[in-house]
Each structure stands twice: as C-alpha cells, then as structure tokens.
C-alpha cells in the first residue's frame, strides 16, 4: 500500500528557511529536523541567528521563504496564538513574566483553557486549575510564594516562573532561549535539575552557551554560524569538528 517513499515522521521539520532583514540574511536556507522526545541544543557565536530561528518557529518573526512543519502543520501561515495551540511553547531570553500579578495568577494565565475573550470572562478558578498550578509551582520551587507579586522574585525565580508558565501550557515542543543565563551557581544547578525533569515526554529546543550544561542535556547539537548550519550531530562529533573549533569553541 506504500505509495512512493514514506519519509520519517519528524515532530518539527524546518526546510530551506530564510529570513532577511533589509537584505541581511539572518537565517539563510536553514534546514533541520527534530524528532519526538529529542533534546536539541543550538549553539553558535553571537549573531549566528539562534534566537531568530526560535522567533521564526513561534511566529514572532515571519519567514521570507521556506517552511516550518510541526506535526505536518505549516507554522509559517499561523498566528502566534495558533502556534501555541498547536503545541509549541517559547521561553524568552530575558524573563518575561507579569510583574503586577501574583505567581499564582502568572501561572493561571498559561493554563490552557478560556483563551478567548468570552472564555476568559467565564473562566472559573476551579479545583483542576488550582491543583495544576500548585503542582507546577512545586516543580519550579515557588510553592510557598504563590501569593507573592512576581515583581518581588529574584532573577532566577523569575526564570523558573516563566518555565513554569510553559509547563502549564504542556507543549509538545518546548523552546528555551538561554534558560540558565544570568543565574547564580546554585540556581544553575537547580535549573538543570528542573530542566532534566521537564524535558521528559516532549521535544525541546534549547539555545545555550554554557557548554557543561549543553553536554548534560543534549541529544544532538546544531551549530549555527551566520544563519547557516556549520555542523550537526552528537556532542562528540561537534566538539571535534575543526570548523566548529575555528568559529566557536576555540575562542
């Protein structure tokens, strides 16, 4: 019954993706594939286009050409909130949380129910919501701070809170932009532990500079340079690639 070649089912298939800003190609003919339950780390020097790739996948930036298929759905044609609904979650580089809301309210906003105008008017904070918020708050070490305004959290706690907000969304693909940047050593250890727990049962796309952290979690590494893939493969492969050493690791 097989008609033609049946390609392998990827969770995310990025093909020939290009975006140009006034002629400057931040991402240039980029293709890569992420499998189910894979943890992919993107590394590369500053300006390599790492964050732009995440921006393109989550719809923040519109691609000039190319395609992004997520579970067979073309993401480049969807709006940001539709991409979230499709199952893609995104954490930003600087913690973007709601300072004037409590930790509980921050988490509750991400709860995937009542996302329309009238749905949110009718939204009730029922037992299911409370349980889920409490469960996640425990994972992100903020259980005893639920009624604190987010403005009062430390930088590390704010990062955790945003990760928690993504967990409540329960995305199939989780994209994290430098999750441990700017954290203290003890916060880093806790975050690594947290990430190791939450990356189970989903695919994760991480941008990170901390090579020890990358080595800990990555299944596969993609090295970007000037908007293109320089090298791709296991940590061992990438580490010994002379091109990578030249532009990135050597420094």
């Amino acid at each position, binding site marked *: 019954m097989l008609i033609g070649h049946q390609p392998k089912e990827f969770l995310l298939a990025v093909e020939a993706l290009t975006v140009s800003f006034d002629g400057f190609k931040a991402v240039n003919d980029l293709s890569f594939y992420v499998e189910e339950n894979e943890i992919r780390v993107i590394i590369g020097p500053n300006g390599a286009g790492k964050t732009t790739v995440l921006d393109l996948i*989550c719809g*923040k930036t519109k691609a000039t050409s190319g395609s992004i298929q997520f579970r067979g759905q073309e993401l480049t044609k969807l*709006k*940001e*909130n539709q991409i*979230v*609904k499709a199952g893609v*979650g*995104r954490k*930003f580089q600087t913690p*973007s*949380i*709601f*300072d*004037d*809301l*409590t930790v509980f*309210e*921050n988490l*509750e*906003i*991400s709860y*995937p129910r*009542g*996302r*329309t*105008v009238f749905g*949110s*008017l*009718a*939204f*009730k*904070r029922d037992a299911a919501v409370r349980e889920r918020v409490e469960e996640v708050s425990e994972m992100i070490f903020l259980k005893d701070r639920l*009624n604190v305004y987010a403005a009062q959290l430390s930088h590390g706690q704010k990062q955790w809170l*945003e990760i928690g*907000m993504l967990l409540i*969304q329960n995305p199939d693909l989780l994209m994290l932009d430098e999750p441990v940047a700017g954290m203290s050593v003890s916060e880093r250890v806790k975050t690594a532990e947290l990430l190791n727990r939450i990356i189970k049962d989903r695919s994760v796309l991480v941008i990170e500079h901390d090579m020890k952290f990358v080595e800990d979690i990555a299944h596969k590494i993609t090295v970007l340079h000037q908007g293109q893939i320089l090298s791709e493969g296991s940590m061992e492969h990438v580490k010994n690639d002379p091109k990578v050493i030249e532009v990135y690791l050597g420094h």
Partner: protein
Amino acid sequence: MINSRFFNRSELIGFVTLALLLFLILPLTLDIFRLNLVAKYLTYAFVAVGLVLCWGYGGILSLGQGVFFGLGGYCMAMYLKLEASSVENTKIQSTPGIPDFMDWNQITQLPLFWKPFHSFPFTLLAILLVPAFFSFIIGAAMFKRRVGGVYFAIITQAIAAILTILIVGQQGYTGGINGITDLRTLHGWDIRTDHAKFILYFVEVVLLFGCIVLAQFIRLTKLGRILVAMREQEDRVRFSGYSVANFKIFAFCMAAIFAAIGGAMFTLEVGFMSPSFVGIVPSIEMVIYTAVGGRLSIFGAVYGTLLVNFAKTSLSESFPQLWLFGLGALFIAVVLAFPDGLAGIWRDYVQPRIDRLMSSRKSKNGWTDSSVADGAPAE
C-alpha cells in the same frame, strides 16, 4: 453579588462611601442647580471608569473618548430633537415636522439615517451599539495591525478631530457648530423641570454604579488579569496562546460603550449636545480626570472627575484665562509626582494610617484579619 470577595475591604469602603455621597449627601445638601452640575460632571465619570479599564488596566491610551461620548450623546439628542420637532411645534417652518436646523439649511425632508430615531427602543440600542460598532472597527483596524501606544493615541485623537469637523461641516444633518439644541421631552416627559432633573440625577447615578460594578466584575475575571498582563508583557500573553488584539478590542469597546452612556446622560441632563464635547480638548480632559483620580482605581476615577470639574467650574468663573494652564499643570504634576493619582495618595498615605488604627483596635479585641488577595476571583 456584592460580597467580601467581589470587593476587598478597602474597595467595599470605597463603594459604600461613594454610594452614600452620590445617593444621599449630595442630593440632600445641594440645590437643584448645583445637583444638576454634579450630574453633568458625573456624565464624564462614565468615560473615566471606561478609561480605567482600557488605559489603566489594558494600557491602551485613547485620546478620542469624546468620539464615543459624542456618539452616545448625539443618538439621544436625535431622538429628543425629533420629539421636539413635531409638526405642531414646527408649523412656522417652511417644512414642518423636521428639526429646525434642517429647515434653516434648506433641507426639506428628514434624512434617512434620522428616521429610526423616532423610536425610543431603537435610540437606546443605538446609544450602545453605534459606539460599540465604531470602536470595534477602529480597534480591529489598529490592534490587528499591532498599532499601539503613542501611535494609537494619536490616531484616536485624529478621529476625534475628524468627527468634529464632520459634525460642524454637515450642518444640515447634524446641527453644525451649535449642535442639537432646544430639546424638551423624553418620551413625552418634560426633562427641563427641576423635578425631572432630580429624577435624572438618580437614574444617572444608578447607571454609573451599574458601570462601576460591571467594570469591577471584568477586572476580577481572568480577562482583567490578562489586560494587566498585556500591559506589561504583550508578547508573553501572545505566546501563552491569546489573541492580544481581541482583548484590546474588547477593552476599547467597553470603554466606548461606557463613554456613550455618559454622553447620552449628558444630553438629558444638559438639554443639548454639540461638537464641543466631541473633539480633542474634551477627550484629553477626560484622560486627565482619570489620571487625577488614579488610572488604576475605578472609584478614584469618579472622584477625580468630580474634583477636577468642581475646580474647573469655580476657577473658570473667576479666572477664565488661567483655567487651561491650571489643567495642564495639574496633569503634569500628577504624572510626575503621583502617577497613581488620588487613589495612589489614598493607598500610600491615608490607608496605612487607617490600617494601623484599625489593627491596634483589632488586636485588643483579639480579631485576626485575613487579608484577601487582590486578584481574588468573583465567585
């Protein structure tokens, strides 16, 4: 519906105080002339309460609320004008049965868009739906294209200017610069008598409290929290799966509807409607009322409106030239020194003292205060 969870303690005090002031103290102490002035001021409080939702919570600064105030006011004025322009009342005109200003402009037939305003139920619906429709169109056109902040404020201001020019220019259809004047009866009931003004005052206060309760309800739902979230981190809301534009449109439409109710009440209280309540200056004044009262406080907005208007009346009686400078200075002072306005002053300086007094008394009685979280849901 009003229980300790709907209003927290200080809000409940604010609600009761305002209710006492507007329902009892002012009607009992002021003569009908002054009470009518208060009624006129309070029509702007509708706009201010809407701005608290839209600007204070949602972060959408509209400098064109006069448009919606005017639309509501004109809808009401058209109905009243048609009633005042019966064939009998206008028999000296060359075309009896149409409003006087149309006759003066050589219009011999009632324009089509005026005809439905013979009906009172239609007029009431139009007061709510016409501004809702316009704000929806403006909101959809702007917010879907991600126009926000200062750009949105400037565009709303331009719309206020355009509508004023349109009304003034289309004299035969709108009454021009003079507006729609000489309004007499509402559904056969004379609105010019002292008794009617007294009744209208109470109708208005009841409607205002309706808007306040509705605004408070919206504030306490998840939608209210999303508005705050949007104001701070629009992208995070978007990437939490919400269509930010739709929420902004909703807040803008609610503010427009509140403003229109205020405008319709203005026409009834004052007895006319003119483009001078539609344009840029009144629209900015409405924002100042909200800023002075505190843009995050629904009650503060009402007090701010009352106070600024009292000041305006008393100062512009004695120093008509200075008033606008005073208003400008007030706005600058509030923005620089008290960004949360009167409500912020109350919260930071007065409330803590009251709390200290209360708690020292409470601890004597062995009472414990269970503080209700600010964003407690309405249940």
